[in-house]
C-alpha cells in the first residue's frame, strides 16, 4: 500500500513536471493515465520493495553527495591521464567482495562503480563484482572497501 | 548564422557517415552507422523545427530499424560479399535521379520563405484557430487526432491488421516448432 502511494506520488510529479498543464480536463486525463499505470503495475505484481524501493530513499540521499564528490575526484584523475600521455595508465581487472550486500545493494554498488570514471563493473555475481580499473590507484581505492561500506549503510536505514 | 554553420557541419557529418556506411563491409558496423545517421538527421530535423519528424526519426531510426537490421544480420551472416558486377550503370542512374530531384526542388519556394503558398492560407489558419477550435495546445496533435481523426483511426486499423497478420503467421509456426523461430519476430 505504501509502495502504491509512493508510485502515485512519483508518477503524478513526473506528469506535472513534464506537461506543465493545469487545466481541469488535462489534469483529469493525467490522473487517469497515472491510475492506469498503477493498476497495471499492481497486476504485474511490481509494487513490492524491488519495484518501488522507497525504503532506500533516506539512505540514498545520504549516499548521493559523497558519490558526487568521488565522481568529481576520479574525473579529474582520469582527465589528467587522458590529456597528459606521460602519466601511465595501468588497466587491471580486480574482484571486489560483495558477499554482505543484498540484491539491491549489489546493484547500487555496481552502478556506483561504473558511474565513477576509472572503474567499470564488468560482471556481477552472487558474491563478487568483477571490475575493470584504469589505474592501480583506482583499483586500490576500490579495494579499500570504503564505497562498499557506505553502500551497506544505505541498505539498512 | 550560428545555426546555419551548425547545420552545415551536421550535413558534412551526415555525408561522412553515409560514405562510411557504403564503404564498410562489416554489416554490423553498417547498422551502427545507420543508427548514427539517424541521430544526426534527428538533430537536423530539430533545427528545422520539425519536432515530430525528429521524434519519429529517433524512435524508428535509432531504435526499431537498428534492431530489425541486426536481427536480419543474425540470420544472414555478418560480412558482405564484394559485388562482381560493374557499378557504373547504377551510379549513372542514381546520379541522374538525384540531379532530376535537385532540378525539381529549384521550382519550390525557398526554405523559410514567408511568401510561400503554404504560409498564406492553411498553416496560419491551423496555428491561430486550432487552440480555440479543439482545445488542444499542441497543433500537430490537434491536426492528427481531431481534424484528421477518422484518417488516423483508419491508419491505426491498417497497422493493427498488419501487426495481427504478422503475429498470426509467425505465432503459428512457433507453436509447432518451439525454439526454431526467427530473431526479429
Amino acid at each position, binding site marked *: 500500500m505504501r509502495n502504491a502511494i509512493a508510485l502515485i506520488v512519483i508518477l503524478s510529479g*513526473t506528469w506535472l*513536471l*513534464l506537461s*506543465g498543464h493545469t487545466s481541469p480536463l488535462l489534469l483529469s486525463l493525467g490522473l487517469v493515465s497515472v491510475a492506469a499505470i498503477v493498476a497495471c503495475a499492481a497486476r504485474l505484481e511490481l509494487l513490492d520493495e524491488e519495484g518501488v524501493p522507497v525504503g532506500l530513499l533516506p539512505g540514498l540521499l545520504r549516499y548521493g553527495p559523497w558519490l558526487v564528490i568521488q*565522481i*568529481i575526484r576520479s*574525473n579529474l584523475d*582520469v*582527465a589528467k591521464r*587522458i*590529456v597528459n*600521455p606521460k602519466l601511465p*595508465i*595501468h*588497466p*587491471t*581487472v580486480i574482484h571486489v567482495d560483495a558477499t554482505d550486500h543484498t540484491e539491491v545493494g549489489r546493484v547500487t554498488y*555496481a*552502478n*556506483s562503480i*561504473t*558511474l*565513477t*570514471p*576509472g*572503474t*567499470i*563493473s*564488468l*560482471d556481477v555475481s552472487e558474491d563478487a563484482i*568483477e571490475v*575493470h580499473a*584504469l589505474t592501480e590507484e583506482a583499483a586500490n581505492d576500490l579495494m579499500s572497501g570504503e564505497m562498499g561500506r557506505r553502500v551497506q549503510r544505505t541498505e539498512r536505514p | 548564422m550560428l545555426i546555419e554553420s551548425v547545420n552545415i557541419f551536421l550535413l558534412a557529418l551526415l555525408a561522412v557517415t553515409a560514405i562510411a556506411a557504403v564503404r564498410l563491409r562489416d554489416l554490423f558496423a553498417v547498422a551502427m552507422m545507420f543508427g548514427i545517421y539517424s541521430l544526426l538527421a534527428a538533430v537536423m530535423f530539430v533545427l528545422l523545427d520539425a519536432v515530430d519528424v525528429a521524434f519519429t526519426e529517433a524512435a524508428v531510426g535509432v531504435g526499431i530499424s537498428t534492431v530489425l537490421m541486426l536481427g536480419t544480420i543474425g540470420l544472414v551472416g555478418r560480412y558482405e560479399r564484394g559485388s562482381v558486377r560493374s557499378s557504373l550503370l547504377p551510379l549513372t542512374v542514381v546520379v541522374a535521379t538525384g540531379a532530376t530531384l535537385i532540378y525539381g526542388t529549384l521550382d519550390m519556394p525557398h526554405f523559410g520563405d514567408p511568401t510561400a503558398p503554404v504560409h498564406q492560407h492553411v498553416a496560419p489558419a491551423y496555428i491561430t484557430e486550432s487552440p480555440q477550435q479543439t482545445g488542444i495546445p499542441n497543433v500537430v496533435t490537434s491536426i492528427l487526432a481531431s481534424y484528421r481523426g477518422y484518417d488516423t483511426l483508419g491508419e491505426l486499423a491498417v497497422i493493427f491488421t498488419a501487426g495481427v497478420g504478422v503475429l498470426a503467421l509467425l505465432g503459428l509456426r512457433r507453436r509447432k516448432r518451439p525454439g526454431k523461430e526467427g530473431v526479429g519476430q
Partner: protein
Amino acid sequence: MSGLTDLLSMALLGIGTLFLLIGATGLLRLPDVFTRLHGASVTDTLGAGAILLGLALAAGWGLLMGKILALLLIMALLGPSTAHALARAATHGFRKPWLHETDKAEK
C-alpha cells in the same frame, strides 16, 4: 545576485565543455574498448552534469529547471546501466581487456 548566478552558470558550462573535449579525446586516444569506456564516462558524468547544471542555472527557478534536473537524473541513472551492459557484452564477446605489460608477463 543575478550577475553571480550568470557567472556561475558560465563557469559550469565552461568546465563541462572542457571535460567534454577531454572525454572525446580519450575516446579517440585510449588503446581498447574498456579504457575507452573510462574516457566516455568522463564525458557522461562530469561533462554532461556540469553543462546541464549550467543550463539549469541559466533557466532560473521554474518548471524548466525541474525538467533539466530531471534530464540530469535520468542520464545519471541510465548511463551506468548502458556502460555496464556494454562492458559485460564486451567481456562475454571474449574481448580480453588490454592489460599492462608487467601483468601480461606475470601470466
